[in-house]
Every structure is written in structure tokens, then in C-alpha cells.
């Protein structure tokens, strides 16, 4: 079902609840999820972190790969998420935060989400129309998340300015596709050759800006792609 973003309103949404069971069902077919800079360390040991162009603006966005093909999430089976760290936007669904034209942060909810129920689950507003503890927690997490967006943007702008990003070409073997393999498209990574070619002064800048952990968390995470591909192959073999 498509997304329908609306601003959270204590009158319109007085009685809705957010279900507590199978909280990540909405992401079962999601193969890419945007992450912020402060999520790199937690995500990097579970998911490949790559850069993908935003379809509307062409800006690079740091992205955790949940699958190798569109519509595929290899980390959510039988309503259970297999990794310890769940990326922030998935955990916070159906909530998100956006800046309006006055630069104020508005909490939004996806009105079409299956996570919204009328019977059981967490309420958002109490009898007096005040935010519940549950919603307060969500709002705090959303504020953190949005505060990070400028840091993340600066990090991306720096990488682009220093021309450290290159397209990533990788072919994955897969018996289930027509040619026995396919290549990942639209994926970009930090180019290690260009990283090495930075002057001492520029490299020190990376340290001062706290970009080194982000870059290395990203580079190390790329190994996980192979792990995902061989896991898929193994699953295909056992299904024979």
C-alpha cells in the first residue's frame, strides 16, 4: 500500500493505536533503507552501508542494504528481525519527522500503515489529549534522528566535494535469474584509491571532522554483500 503522510494531530489521531506485535511487517519487502551518520557504527556490522542517489534530487544518501534485489529483505523472516540493530526509520515507522516551510519540525504519521489499529496496541494521546509516554519516546527519537540530518548532509557534501565517491560495480551469482548472475546498479562507495591519494592535510581533516569511523564502518561493511549472496545461494541449494 502506498504511503500517505499526514501531520500528527491530537484530535484526528486521538484514538488510534500502534500495534506491538510484528512491528516490522511494513519492511518485509524493503531492500534499501536510508540511515543517518550516527547509525553507521551500529549498522556496519549487520548491513552493507552504501550510497544511493535520491530519485527526486540526485543527492547521495547513506543507505543500508537489506536485500540484493528490489523487493527483497533478507533480514526479516517469519516476522522476526534477525539483527540486533534495526535502522532508525524502520523502528520509528509509521512515524517520521519533516521540516515545514517555517523550518519547524512536524511529526508525521503514515495514515495507510498497517501498524495503525483501533483495538490493541499503544495509544498516542491520553484522555486529556496529552502525549502518552510512548509518543514522547517516539518524538525524542525523531528529534535525535532529524538533528543528525545536517551532520549527515555535511558528511556527504564533503565526500562529493573531495570526489571520494565512485560507482560500485559488483556481479552477484544467482541461479534464479536468467543469465545466472546480475550486477548491482545505482550503488556508490568511497573509493579507497582516492582516499589513499588525499594529501596529509586533507586526511587530517577527516580525523578532525570525525569522519574516519564513518568511512571505515562503511568500507568494512561491504564484505557483508558477499555474505548475503552466499547465504542466498545456500538457501537455493537446500531448496532443491
Amino acid at each position, binding site marked *: 500500500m502506498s504511503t500517505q503522510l499526514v501531520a500528527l494531530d491530537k484530535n484526528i489521531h486521538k484514538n488510534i493505536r500502534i500495534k506491538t506485535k510484528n512491528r516490522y511487517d511494513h519492511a518485509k519487502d524493503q531492500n534499501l533503507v536510508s540511515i543517518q551518520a550516527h547509525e553507521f557504527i551500529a549498522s556496519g556490522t549487520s548491513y552493507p552501508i552504501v550510497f544511493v*542517489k*535520491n*530519485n*527526486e*534530487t*540526485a*543527492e*547521495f544518501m547513506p543507505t543500508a542494504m537489506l536485500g540484493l534485489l528490489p523487493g527483497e529483505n533478507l533480514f526479516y523472516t517469519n516476522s522476526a528481525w534477525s539483527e540486533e540493530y534495526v535502522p532508525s526509520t524502520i523502528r520509528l515507522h509509521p512515524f517520521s519527522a519533516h521540516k515545514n516551510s517555517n523550518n519547524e519540525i512536524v511529526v508525521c504519521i503514515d495514515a495507510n500503515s498497517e501498524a495503525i489499529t483501533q483495538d490493541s496496541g499503544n495509544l498516542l494521546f491520553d484522555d486529556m489529549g496529552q502525549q502518552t509516554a510512548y509518543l514522547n519516546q517516539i518524538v525524542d527519537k525523531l528529534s535525535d534522528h532529524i538533528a543528525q540530518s545536517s551532520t549527515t548532509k555535511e558528511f556527504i557534501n564533503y565526500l*562529493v566535494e573531495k*570526489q571520494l*565517491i*565512485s*560507482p560500485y560495480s559488483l556481479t552477484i551469482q544467482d541461479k534464479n535469474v536468467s543469465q545466472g548472475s546480475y550486477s548491482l546498479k*545505482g550503488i*556508490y562507495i568511497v573509493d579507497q584509491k582516492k582516499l589513499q591519494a588525499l594529501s596529509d592535510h586533507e586526511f587530517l581533516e577527516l580525523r578532525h571532522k570525525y569522519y574516519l569511523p564513518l568511512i571505515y564502518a562503511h568500507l568494512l561493511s561491504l564484505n557483508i554483500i558477499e555474505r548475503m549472496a552466499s547465504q542466498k545461494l545456500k538457501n537455493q541449494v537446500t531448496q532443491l
Partner: protein
Amino acid sequence: MSDLVKKVLIVGGGTAGWLTAAKLAKELNSKDPSAVQVTLIESPDIPIIGVGEGTWPTMRTTLQKVGIDESEFMRSCNASFKQGSRFVNWRFTPKNGVDNYYHNHFTSLQNPEQFNLAPYWSLGYAGSISYAEAVSIQGTVSEHGLAPKKITTAQYEGIQNYAYHLDAGKFADFLKKHCIEKLGVTHLFGNITDVVKDDYGYITSVNTDSQGNIEAEFYVDCSGFSALLIGKALGVPFKSINDKLFVDHAIAIQVPYKDEENDPVASQTISTAQRAGWIWDIGLTNRRGTGHVYSSRYMDHDEAEKILRNYIGPGADQLNAKRIKMNIGWRERFWEKNCVAVGMSAAFIEPLEASAIFLIEAAGNMLSDQFPRNRAAMQKVQDKFNRSFLYRWDKSVEFIKMHYFLSRRDDGEFWTDNRKVESVPTALLERLEHWKMHPPSRYDFDNLFEPFPLESYQFILFGLDFPMNLENNRTSFHMADIAKMHFQKIQALKEGIKTELPTHRALLNKLKNYSFQSI
């Protein structure tokens, strides 16, 4: 005594002047004070011609090589994407108000120099569709008002091959800014009063009304039809070719959109044939550029203007028209001693295939590649350059003449006279004679600097229903299975592309706020 070239003076600040300045300054590394310096002088009083708004796909490489950001260029010059040309009513005179068309696309899916689909199309293996529809999906893309790329495509790359439509005035200003700020070009305003030559006939300096005397060792004449250096100072004669190409005037009118945000932008140059010429229609982001190119031997100026205003439709009477006299032909030599002419000072044929700006780029490429550092070198490069560009202009005339010669329009003497063999270059007659029974091949295009390649000829040839008959030779085209496979693949791609590409207008609107990445 050293006659080492230390300074180049370019005369003229239109497209020719600034493109050449950019190319030279970049190649010669003029930012470095010890390198050859490039100075451009332009008149503060004489306006640029300001109507050349169509380019070729080569412009992408040209801009990229001089360090220009594609998105910035497009925003500054109200530029849009050009995916070839649509020729309306060239095949024959329209009857009962029904128009006829053919197209010259920029992208063919199969390179004819490796495996030519044309003979297989001619023998019927693609069904009854036109040649352009059989070998390219670009017609579908343009018809549906789609762009040749997405915002996520890297700059200068395309999902379909493309060139630009651009605002001529803004383009000159944009290039000027880039040349001065990033490439180390010196800019002067002034009018040249006279040219000083030495005993050997080489230009040593020019006198101006406001900048005194300017010395340089090499000169580039980009002064347009005035040809101040190559024509007036050095006396190189001009050879008219109006016996072959009859058009000699153009009337240009700029047309605003009703809705600048939402009106669709045409993704091809539309060229509509008329009784004694044709009308160009180019879509930019904020307006259209239209013009009626005609021959005053067959039509008077007032009627030509009326026809253009009629084409534009209601509201045309509010718009200003500009009339331009075109000198169709070229200098007998483009490079004379220490001066080379680039742009209209060198040659002009007519804008039917947007070749003028392309030939400016080509001249800049050869000049900067072969740039002579002293007089001995100049003498060697001069002949090479003249030979090469004479060939290019010759072939350009041939290609354009073909559009008129193969047309079957019968609504006036302009068209019937265009088919008289005395008005046709012999080389074209010979090629066409051969192609009656044998498809064009790469052996017909064996010059590295052929301006119009094999496939361009094929689009025009078969678009104009040229009667190539290969029946007697059918057995030698025995790879029909492979050809059919290509044809099917091309048709299959047409469906998918409709959902993959954004509309032209949508992408141009996005470009106002966002940019293509460089990768």
C-alpha cells in the same frame, strides 16, 4: 629573433569567440602566466547574431573538457535537451491539411558501421514501419515528451544520445564568465579601427578606439559576417554557394510559453518546410525560438514574415521580428598566415542541420591540438587546416542539399529548381546513384572527420523515401534472422522506456533546484 607566439587575440564575443577562447585557454593552460595568453576583444556596440540555438551531441564533450558543470550551464542558458530533428512536410506537399513527417534521431541501437540494418529494413524484415521507427526508440521518447535522461543520471551522460537547445545570448555570457573567472582569458571591450601588417602580410597588431594598439602573434577572427580580419584586412575572397543552397534570409521571432512552468518543451528541433524555405522551432525552458529561413529569389520579405506569424498563431502580432541576411558560402581559405577564421567569418551554409556551432567546436579542436608556436609551424598547419575544413564544409553542403534534392514537394519553383542537377554537388549525385542499388556503407564515409556520419545520411535518405531497390541482391543479405532479432529488441524496448524516463518539462523543472552528479 624569436617569433614565439606568446599571445592570441580573438576578435568577436559571440558563440564562436567565446567557445574558441575557452578551448584555447584550457588547452594552452593560459591560467599559468608563462603559458600562451588568450585575449578576446569584442565591440560594445555591435550585437551578436543571437539566433544560433541548436547544437550537436559533441557540445557535451566540449563543455565537459573546459570544466563546465552541465547543470549550471543548463540553468544559466535556459537550455533544454535536443534529441534530433523532426522534419514536417519535407517529404511532399501536404494534401488536405494532413502533415507528413520524418525524423533524424541521434540514437540508433545498432551501429550501422558494424551491422547495417538498413538493407534488411528496405527488404521488409521490420514490417511496414519507417526506418527511424525500426532502428531507434528515440522517436517514442520524443513523441511522449520524455527527457533523454533522469536526474540521477551523471552529468553529460544520457540514456538516449542528446545535444542541447540553448539561448544564444545567455550562452555567450555564460562562456565569457567561465573564461574570465576560471580559464585565465583577458576580456576587452573595444572597436577595431585598423589592422597593422608586416612586410610578409602577417598581422602584427590592431588599433582600437578605446584600448589603444594591441599586439599579438596569432589572431582568431570571430567577427561574424563582417570578417574584419580574414576578409577586410587579409583580403581572402568569399565564395558564394547560392547556386546550390538557395536560402539567403531568415526572419526570427521569439515566442513565450503560455505557462512557463507546465507547457511541454519539444525535445527535437522542429523544421517545417514552406513554399520557399522552412521554419525552425526550438524549445527552451522559458520560451521558443522560431525562424523562417527562405530564399528572397522566390519569396519577398513581407510574405516570409507573414508566413512565420501565421505559423506562430494567435498573439504573434505582439511579437518582434528580426530579419537577418545570410551570406551562404565560405572563405577560399579559413587560415591565412597568422589568422584563422572561426564561425560565420569563415563560412555559413544554412541552419537546417545545426552544423554551424558544431563546426566552431571542430575548428577549436583542431586549432588547439595543432596550435602553432611560431611562423614555421603556422605555414605547416595552415594547409592541413584549410584542406580539412574545406572538406567538412563541402560535405555539409552535400548533406543539406540532399534534404532539398530528395524532397518531392511540388508547390513552387523553389522546390523544382532545387531538384535541377546543375544545383547539386557532383559527389552527392554520384553517391545517390550508387545507393539506388546498394546500401550506404562505411566505405562511403572513410574520412575521419566526416561531419555527418553514415547513420545521419540513412535517416534522411530513408526518411525522404529514397527509392533504394535491393531486390536483385536479396540473397546477399542473408542475416535476416539476426536483423529480425534486432528489430524485435528495439520494439520491445519502446514499452519499457515510457515508464523509465521523466517528461522533458519535469526534468527541466527539477534542474532549477537540483543538479546532476558528476558520477
